[in-house]
């Protein structure tokens, strides 16, 4: 199949999916307005950010295993959210999560600059170490607060069913618009990213300041990751696999944009399934892997 057929098909499918997502099984408009639409927006934003940031990280760190969570931001954000949850401050969960992400970002940034040098290996190692530290803190909290286990699990396994109050909703809309703005900034780096993916040496010889580029991507991506984890918890798979899928199918300069849209599509689809497949709602992170892995194997075998 060529791109010419695939892209229009993708958008038709996307529109159909969104319509199905907001209207399936909805008994009255109160539910549509107060639960489904906010949820759709959150799912869209999370998938869009995760897959886009995943793509940028894989190029920036020159590592096929990179994903939005690799630099520890998610653990920091989850730690903040869990701290708010176990202390009973449910209203402050997203704020704590975002503050956790910010502090982690500053910590990783400073660690990566020890000795004055800044390169991708140091960044990667600092991120992984900080992430492990926060994971240990999370385990500690879980151990002492087993009565809150279901709330903690929903943060660690991803939960798009965040309930907004009127004030929270206004804040979220502002956050949504800012996030889309940051994503557009990431897209504007697409050309430089494409050059960077051919190797540091080539990029330097073409006059790209690779340190500056890496720093920019790190800061923007960390902010974006922090936002998704603060609202939706840690949703795995999307940020790691969707960029690879898109690269296999398209391999063009706009891959990062297609990747982000593909991530949004996959996450909305998986959340739709997670909501309706069982009697109780399943964590969306489980469904993303169930749906995504076979599809990934299929595409990989086709590509040889």
């Amino acid at each position: 199949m060529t791109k010419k057929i695939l892209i229009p098909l993708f958008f038709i499918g996307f529109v159909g999916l969104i319509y199905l997502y907001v209207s399936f099984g909805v008994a009255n408009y109160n539910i549509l307005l107060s639960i489904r639409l906010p949820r759709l927006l959150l799912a869209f934003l999370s998938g869009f950010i995760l897959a886009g940031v995943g793509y940028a990280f894989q190029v920036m760190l020159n590592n096929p295993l990179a994903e939005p969570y690799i630099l520890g931001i998610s653990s920091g954000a989850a730690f903040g959210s869990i701290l708010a949850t176990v202390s009973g401050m449910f209203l402050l969960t997203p704020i704590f999560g975002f503050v956790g992400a910010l502090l982690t970002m500053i910590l990783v940034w400073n660690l990566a600059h020890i000795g004055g040098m800044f390169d991708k290996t140091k960044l990667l190692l600092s991120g992984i170490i900080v992430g492990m530290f926060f994971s240990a803190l999370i385990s500690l909290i879980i151990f002492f607060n087993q009565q809150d286990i279901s709330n903690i699990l929903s943060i660690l396994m991803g939960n798009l069913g965040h309930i907004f109050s009127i004030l929270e909703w206004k804040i979220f809309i502002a956050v949504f618009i800012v996030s889309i703005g940051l994503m557009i900034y990431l897209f504007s780096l697409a050309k430089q990213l494409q050059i960077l993916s051919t190797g540091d040496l080539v990029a330097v010889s073409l006059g790209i300041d690779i340190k500056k580029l890496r720093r920019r991507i790190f800061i923007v991506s960390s902010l974006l990751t922090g936002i998704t984890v603060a609202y939706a918890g840690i949703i795995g798979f999307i940020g790691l696999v969707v960029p690879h899928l898109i690269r296999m199918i398209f391999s063009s300069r706009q891959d990062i944009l297609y990747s982000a849209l593909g991530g949004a599509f996959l996450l909305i689809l998986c959340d739709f399934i997670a909501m309706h497949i069982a009697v109780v709602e399943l964590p969306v992170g489980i469904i993303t892997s169930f749906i995504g892995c076979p599809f990934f194997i299929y595409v990989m075998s086709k590509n040889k």
Partner: protein
Amino acid sequence: MSVLYHGVLVSDFSLIFLLFKNNNIKGKDMQKRIIYITFLFAISIAFGCMPKSNKSTTPAYIVTSPEVAEIIVLLGAEDNIVGVTTECDYPNILQSKTKVGTFSEISYEKVVELSPTIVFASNLEQQKLASDLKKMGIRTEIIYSQSLNDMFDNISKIGELIGKSERAKLVVDSLQTELKKITDTAELYKNKKVYIEIYGDPIMTVSDNSFVGNLVEIAGANNIFDSLPRDYSMVSAEKVIESVPEIMILTYPGMSKSDIKNRKGWSNIPAIKNGKIFTIEDINPDLILRATPRAILGMKKLQEIYND
């Protein structure tokens, strides 16, 4: 309103589709299109995506806590219960009610769909539920009893909330009379050491601050764990063996008397030596675990066990 909203949705989505229909898009154009989409979403939201609560005149209750469900039925308001969780299984009439989920996993959509006037939640694991429902403008009352006295207060409170204060007063008064009979004989079992096991792997027990612990004490005996880090808490096997309980009560299914006897190092515990082990076949755990008027029956049963 509803037709209008559907119209806006359809037109939004078709606009998005039209924007992307042309697939010969250059980078700059693509970015512009994304900005358009952002604004489209913002407009849809501005259209009025706000939580609203339906104000209905007939009372409609959703009950997520089995204890409260039982009390509401006892007070004679079962017709006003529109939704329950799967754990609400007593009395039988509740089993035919619409289910909104399980005790720890509740579907907000189903709750909104039933447009309740009051949601009754528990304090255990359900604080987040209460916080979320309040955000959506749904009145939520948290009812949780840690002791028998709490339960009496809560019966009166539920009575007021559902407009059955007089019935609630009658129930509390008759329960107090029954309780008097139990406390009169409580002295007899003063020194009995009782161990309650609510889960076997890991071993979990209760402190005096839990409802069961409170019942055990009021019925006369002594719960071996006065205080624990939590009301329902893990405890090490060593601590149980050290405290030499004379009576063991297991409140969960799947554990037989011989399983307990076979636990390594437990054979010297007096309760096991003298065969004073009581499983769910001997005492219905709901009678002592749930903070409902049935707890009086549970305490009578406990005294029979102490006497045994």
